[in-house]
């Protein structure tokens, strides 16, 4: 066990960081959901983290964010000539964000964050109990 130093605390702690990053991307996606742009290329697209397993020993693994990618949801073209940023045809592009999916994602990552907190609490309690073994 000496050379694979991935304890329960590392496992759950790093999973919490990954879930927190996912929650952050969800927050920025939702914040930008109502934004529009003057061209399809510059319109906001939802960003998503890609999770990757980090294995130390067989079965002992935690998770990290490999990279953050832009989703392939195409921004919606909307005809709005009164908008000051509309192009010469009077069109604007609304951000490519699926708000419902983002909300579901938000709940899922919050739940999984809580799961890891629970794991951490249990592990902490058991470790403390073991330390107090001869009392």
């Amino acid at each position, binding site marked *: *066990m000496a050379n694979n130093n*991935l*304890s*329960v605390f590392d*496992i*759950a702690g*790093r*999973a919490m960081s990954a*879930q927190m990053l*996912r929650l952050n991307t969800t927050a920025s996606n939702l914040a930008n959901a109502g934004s529009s742009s003057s061209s399809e290329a510059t319109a906001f697209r939802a960003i998503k983290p890609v*999770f*990757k*397993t980090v294995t130390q020993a*067989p*079965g*002992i*693994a*935690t*998770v990290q964010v490999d990279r953050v990618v832009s989703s392939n949801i195409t921004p919606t073209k909307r005809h709005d000539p009164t908008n000051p940023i509309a192009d010469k045809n009077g069109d604007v592009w609304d951000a490519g964000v699926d708000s419902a999916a983002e909300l579901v994602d938000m709940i*899922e*990552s919050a739940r*999984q964050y809580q*799961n*890891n907190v629970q*794991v951490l609490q*249990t*592990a902490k309690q*058991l470790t403390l*109990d*073991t330390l107090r*073994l*001869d009392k």
Partner: protein
Amino acid sequence: MANGETLFGLSGTALQLRSQRLALLASNIANAATPNYKARDIDFNKALEAATSGNGTSVDQAARGALGYRVPLEASLDGNTVELSTEQTQFAENAVKYRTTLSFLEGRIGTIMSALKGE
């Protein structure tokens, strides 16, 4: 008997295995959202049997030998086989059993201590 066996008996080995299984189940829960992650678990009885067989198998080796992949009740599209309900119940069960083993050890240490003090 293997080293350390005489003092703590079966409970010492069992506690080490429980601790390893705790880390394993924590890994499964940590990877609940990772695509293509395959959940793993230790066959506890098999590992304990191997570790206490007395043929020099270390606890680490015993745990590795009893390692298997979890068969999911329902396959998911992203290839992930972690089912949180399963993992959480297993984790809770393992934590309770760890605590149980700990109280066995407490009793044993108490016995040894009173024998040492000769009261």
